[in-house]
């Protein structure tokens, strides 16, 4: 019951938000919500720490940007193409890395991401240090104009809702059940006749596709794709957001992404202090809320409402 009230309130707030808040800021939050949700699918539900998730986000931004600039493709097809391309890249990354666990998996994904970063730095179409600029917001289905940030916001919002629903479905599917079992005890899943590596490869594929979707959206929001989006800074930021919000919960990435983006925006005035304040927030959450903000809120809710 409380859940439905919460959803309704959130829905109304999301629909009304661009009347109050700068739409670009809202869309930035939504892009990172999808990105963090894709990362959480791997770390929170498959136990895989990818330390190069920006490779999917940033590469997808270039792919969507290039298609929109150089072809007559509609915006939704550009999103779809970038998503599928990143799913393929994710599958290849999975083939190389899924046999390893823990810190080895993190190192391999980091190395692949660095490799892709340098590839894109050298590639002629990325615009090098300047980035790929002037990415157009082509019409939705070729007819609906989304060139203003206000209308684009509603498209991005709709896609975000679909993406979160997709993550929910993946986690609560026959596949998701086995995946969560692998996270808990891989050797046991193997002894029950499954091949855990295949499941992890599929999880990486799905997660990479979603991260790609987030990157493609970001390219149309800012109308630019840059090397920064592929860099390890962004890979680190997404880990930060997910841990802050709460690992292995569906609301965690939403809260974490929103908080970090708003914090970034707000702290921009503080110059150098921004990093120090951000670091302090992270430290406080790690020390006092090991389950992240959503995990801590759930525990509090259980203590106050259920026990009383």
């Amino acid at each position: 019951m409380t859940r439905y009230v919460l959803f309704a309130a959130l829905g109304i707030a999301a629909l009304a938000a661009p009347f109050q808040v700068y739409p670009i800021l809202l869309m930035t939050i939504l892009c990172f919500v999808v990105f963090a949700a894709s990362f959480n699918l791997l770390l929170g539900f498959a136990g895989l720490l990818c330390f190069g998730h920006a490779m999917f986000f940033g590469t997808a931004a270039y792919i969507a940007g290039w298609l929109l600039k150089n072809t007559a493709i509609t915006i939704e097809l550009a999103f779809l193409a970038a998503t599928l391309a990143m799913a393929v890249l994710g599958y290849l990354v999975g083939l190389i890395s899924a046999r390893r666990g823990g810190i080895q998996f993190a190192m391999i994904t980091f190395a692949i991401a660095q490799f892709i970063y340098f590839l894109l730095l050298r590639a002629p179409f990325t615009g090098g240090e300047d980035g790929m600029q002037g990415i157009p917001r082509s019409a939705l289905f070729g007819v609906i104009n989304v060139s203003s940030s206000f209308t684009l916001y509603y498209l991005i919002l709709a896609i975000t809702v679909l993406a979160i629903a997709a993550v929910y479905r993946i986690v609560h599917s026959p596949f998701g059940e086995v995946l969560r079992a692998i996270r808990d005890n891989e050797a046991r899943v193997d002894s029950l006749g499954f091949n855990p590596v295949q499941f992890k490869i599929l999880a990486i594929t799905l997660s990479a596709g979603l991260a790609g979707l987030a990157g493609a959206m970001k390219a149309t929001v800012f109308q630019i794709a840059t090397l920064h989006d592929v860099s390890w800074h962004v890979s680190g930021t997404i880990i930060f957001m997910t841990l802050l919000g709460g690992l292995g919960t569906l609301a965690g990435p939403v809260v974490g992404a929103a908080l970090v983006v708003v914090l970034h925006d707000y702290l921009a005035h503080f110059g150098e202090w921004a990093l120090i304040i951000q670091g302090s927030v992270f430290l406080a959450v790690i020390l006092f809320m090991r389950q992240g903000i959503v995990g801590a809120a759930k525990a509090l809710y259980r203590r106050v409402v259920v026990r009383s």
Partner: protein
Amino acid sequence: MSVAITTAAPTNPAPEGDYVLEARGLSKSFGGFHAVRNVDLKVKRGSIHALIGPNGAGKTTCFNLLSKILTPTEGQVLFDGQDITGLRSAQVARLGLVRSFQISATFPHLTCLENVRVALQSSYGIAYSFWRSLRALDSLNDRAMQLLAQVGLKAQADLLATELSYGKKRALEIATTLAMDPKVMLLDEPTAGMGREDVEPITDLIREVSPGRTILIVEHNLSVVANLCERITVLQHGEILTEGTYGEVSSNPDVITAYMGGVDDE
């Protein structure tokens, strides 16, 4: 698709010399250290067979070799007449040779029902369906509840495994193993670390699920062994010391010296 109900399918009494699991000259060395050395083991179909020996004798390593978690340095493993030496552990499990682990191996953040259902999914064929709702697994729930009831966990079906007591976790593990409907179960110290009050229910449970299956068990509690097992193999320093009935083995002077020495350092 329906799932086979597996309450102790009556088997024909095994003919003499009908061995379901066989190790031939099995050896495993780690670096230069021989953990298992030239082990010949035959497990009769339908029997409960114990593998005992002091700590570090190589019992768990033997289990890892039989269940193909480890590859032997030398030797062969035969299951149901088939050479499985070259297979992977998951393939062996699908053939019906399923093991449990010495340390408790549940899925702590899954509910008890889900713990068992994961194993049932193994033969259900839709484990890769990431687009389907969990409702697609509803037809497995009856069987899962039946297995939970069998090990006395019906009331805990919706609890997370991590919330169970130690004894109940081991019971859940057995339910999960049973969900595979194994021909042969390898149980590695199912009563280890248990309080006295938990040992008896688990022993009864093992006896209860044994008809129609073969069980190879590593067990330190000798009264459990005496109670359950018709045949006992004693391992020491990676080699077979002797084999026989409980009466034969327990009166063997070599076993008494070897085994008593080992039991003491626990």
